[in-house]
């Protein structure tokens, strides 16, 4: 079985990590630039190829209409859900989007899971280059407060990237796993996770048993649209307003100017985490320079609404866990946005306890995902994670009300059975509407799926169909039905209300092949062939050198034979064979290289340089 990696698919940055077999500790894998952070930015090049990460970030400024950031905000959402986001983010939504959003990048449209799959594929490539082997199984983290559709969209993204997603793990829970490994924590732990676009709070109970450590989530709450992005938006709105007043320049979120300003403001925000004031200098199109000094105090006042908004879910999670803030033993801060001093101070005052920040808040979720990947690979040995469903599952009843059948914060997997019958004679179908949320009316909850239960014609009240609703360990709904009288089982095809169906995914998988980079083996073959060609050229050139005549006949014969073997290996696609033949040729030509070296040294003494030999 291939190795399982842990992936943090973040709003701002994404990372991939694994557990080192020697040390037993999780580690993030660096990309080509040496950084472990892959900016979650995707850009479509004019030639149709996909650019991901740091290079795509540069294109945000030069080609904003072909580039996208923060796509996580669109995952699992319908067009009507995102109207507010559109005022603040430069998302170009295809007006023909129906149940699934489609985003315009240049001349093409992509669904959010497709765009996320490009990021995942990039991380897959990083891991494959690092290990020198195929990586096709992963654990991916999601905000704990993600609903069914958002989770399903993330799983779809994995599938489109050629990854089997073995588990979706909640981000705060992953962070708790990483911290638990780092330093044995005990008792009740609160994880406050404020990332680029999402906020989660989870309360866990850490239990030591004779078998090992159990991480039991007691409650979770959050806001899937609250994060550092919102701080950036507040800063941007403030500056836009000022510039509009003094210079009558209007910024639309779509323009290059807005993107440039946003980049400057993010840098300013980072600077204010470490110093008491920072100055923004921004060149305007009218030739003037906008200058404004932000003090820490003014900055704190500006971002206060974001910090306050996060306290609402914190209070709900505590109340669901039946705990007072001071009854929490440890507090852990996760997510880049928790570097903000105001947030650290607010959390510390609320819990009356200094929060843990020892692990890098950007990496900790990916590290935890790697720990969970390791658990799945080897089976539960000394660590077990018991997570919960963040939202109640309900079904619509008469009059548009919702009957809750699995309450929020139930340990998953969890299930509930409902018995259905018919109301009129020969009724052939029963309509079922499944929802997620805490509100009492169906219209205020999130629609997960609608389906019709098929019933054989019979007098009213006679059919008895038991429907089983099951939330699996990923927090995703499965539905099955059983005819109680015959015992016959049905799997129910549930078409998600917001999301891709199986046909969509099948089609996208086919399409993605032309946009995907070649798979690992293919890339290895190409690289090996290139190397073979250059060593063959060098060998032929060396054999033509007059000094080569000093070779013994047996040596010459061996070189000729190895050249022939390498030539034939290059015809095939077995990159390991090509590499072996390259090594053989290198060995066979050792003496030849020495002869040429000697002559080169002599040439150098005669005033020639090495390149001329």
């Amino acid at each position, binding site marked *: *079985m291939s190795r399982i990696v842990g992936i943090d698919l973040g709003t701002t940055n994404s990372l991939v990590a694994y557990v080192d077999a020697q040390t037993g500790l999780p580690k993030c894998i660096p990309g080509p630039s040496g950084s472990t952070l892959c900016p979650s930015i995707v850009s479509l090049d004019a030639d149709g190829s996909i650019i991901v990460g740091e290079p795509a970030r540069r294109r945000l400024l030069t080609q904003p209409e072909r580039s996208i950031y923060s796509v996580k905000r669109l995952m699992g959402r319908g067009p009507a859900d995102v109207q507010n986001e559109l005022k603040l983010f430069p998302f170009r939504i295809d007006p023909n989007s129906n149940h699934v959003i489609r985003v315009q990048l240049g001349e093409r449209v992509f669904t959010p899971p497709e765009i996320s799959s490009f990021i995942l594929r990039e991380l897959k490539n990083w891991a494959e280059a690092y290990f020198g082997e195929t990586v096709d199984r992963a654990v991916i983290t999601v905000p704990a407060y993600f609903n069914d559709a958002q989770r399903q969209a993330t799983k779809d993204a994995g599938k489109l990237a050629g990854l089997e997603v*073995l*588990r979706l793990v909640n981000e705060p829970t992953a962070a708790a796993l990483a911290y638990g490994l780092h330093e044995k924590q005990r008792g009740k732990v609160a994880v406050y996770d404020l990332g680029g676009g999402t906020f989660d709070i989870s309360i866990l109970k850490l*239990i030591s*048993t004779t*078998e*090992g450590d*159990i991480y039991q989530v007691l409650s979770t709450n959050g806001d899937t649209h609250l994060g550092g992005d919102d701080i950036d938006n507040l800063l941007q709105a403030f500056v836009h307003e000022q510039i509009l007043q003094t210079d009558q320049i209007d910024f639309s979120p779509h323009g290059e100017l807005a993107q440039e300003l946003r980049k400057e403001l993010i840098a300013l925000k980072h600077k204010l985490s470490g110093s008491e004031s920072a100055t923004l200098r921004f060149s305007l199109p009218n030739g003037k320079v906008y200058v404004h000094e932000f003090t820490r105090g003014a900055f704190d006042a500006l971002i206060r609404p974001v910090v306050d908004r996060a306290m609402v879910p914190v209070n709900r999670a505590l109340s669901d866990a039946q705990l007072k803030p001071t009854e929490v033993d440890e507090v852990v801060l996760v997510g880049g946005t928790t570097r903000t001093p105001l947030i650290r101070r607010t959390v510390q005052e609320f819990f009356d306890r200094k929060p843990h920040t020892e692990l890098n808040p950007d990496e900790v979720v990916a590290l935890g995902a790697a720990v969970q990947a390791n*658990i*799945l*690979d080897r*089976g*539960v040995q000394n660590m*077990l*994670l*018991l997570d919960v469903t963040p939202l109640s599952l309900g079904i619509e009843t008469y009059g548009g009300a919702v009957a809750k059948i699995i*309450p929020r914060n*139930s*340990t*998953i*997997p*969890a*299930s*509930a059975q409902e018995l259905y019958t018919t109301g009129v004679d020969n009724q052939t179908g029963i309509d079922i509407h499944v929802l997620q949320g805490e509100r009492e009316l169906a219209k205020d909850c999130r629609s997960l799926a609608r389906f019709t239960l098929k019933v054989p014609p019979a007098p009213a009240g006679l059919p008895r169909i038991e429907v089983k609703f*099951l*939330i*699996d*360990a990923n927090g995703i709904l499965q539905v099955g039905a059983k005819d109680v009288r015959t015992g016959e089982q049905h799997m129910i095809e549930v078409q998600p209300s917001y999301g891709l169906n199986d046909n969509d995914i099948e089609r996208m998988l086919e399409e993605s092949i032309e946009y995907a980079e070649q798979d690992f083996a293919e890339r290895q073959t190409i690289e090996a062939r290139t190397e073979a060609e250059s060593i063959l050229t060098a060998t032929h050139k060396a054999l033509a050198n007059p000094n080569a005549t000093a070779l013994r006949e047996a040596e010459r014969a061996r070189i000729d034979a190895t050249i022939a073997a390498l030539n034939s290996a290059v015809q095939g696609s077995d990159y390991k064979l090509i590499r072996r033949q390259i090594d053989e040729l290198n060995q066979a030509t050792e003496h030849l290289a020495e002869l040429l070296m000697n002559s080169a040294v002599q040439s150098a003494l005669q005033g020639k340089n090495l390149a001329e030999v």
Partner: protein
Amino acid sequence: MTTSLPTTNPPLVCWSCHERTVGTHFCSSCGKVLQVPEHSDFFSLFEIPRKLCVEMGALEQKFLQLSWKLHPDNFVNATPEERDISLKRSSELNDAYRTLRDPVARVEYLLAVEGARKEGQNKQQAPPELLEEVFELNESLDELREAKASGGDTASLKHKLAAAEKSFEGKLSEVDGQLQAAARDWDQAIDQNSDKVRRDAIKTRLNDLLNRRSYIRNLVVNVQKELL
């Protein structure tokens, strides 16, 4: 404890090795995870008698111990069939723990498996001795809604409702006390191996108390919503 464990697990044939097995969760012959037994219930899953006073510490211990073995994390590299069984068994375990941990849900569940749970014919109907108070409460609720809609004075109405809510909360804890007493009666009847007549009488009483509780609880929740 004087009662023996209920014999709800008849001899079973393992789906994998086809041997007869005496295991509860895993096959005693081949060690594979077993299907959910046809006639199991939450009490037998935890290997406890069908009684209503449950020792929480022991329940949690058993839950954690079974979670180690049955959780899907153990079956990622197993066959699809075993993965499916693990998913069913661990969801059943979690459902059982969620139900038995909660004193009210526990009574509801016991009555359901005993075939004795009957929700009120008309859930909206007030218990007779509460009729007058409920009538008054509903009147005040209507007045408050009207006052809110017309922008009238709500302070005095809210004050009145808050007092009524307090009174009904008192009744709620009264019912909870009666429920606990009936639960102890049930456990005693089991321990003393009492006859069907006595057991049926306790079940009827438990059922009535549950209906009464749910009626008062709805009332309290409705008032709280209006007072927010």
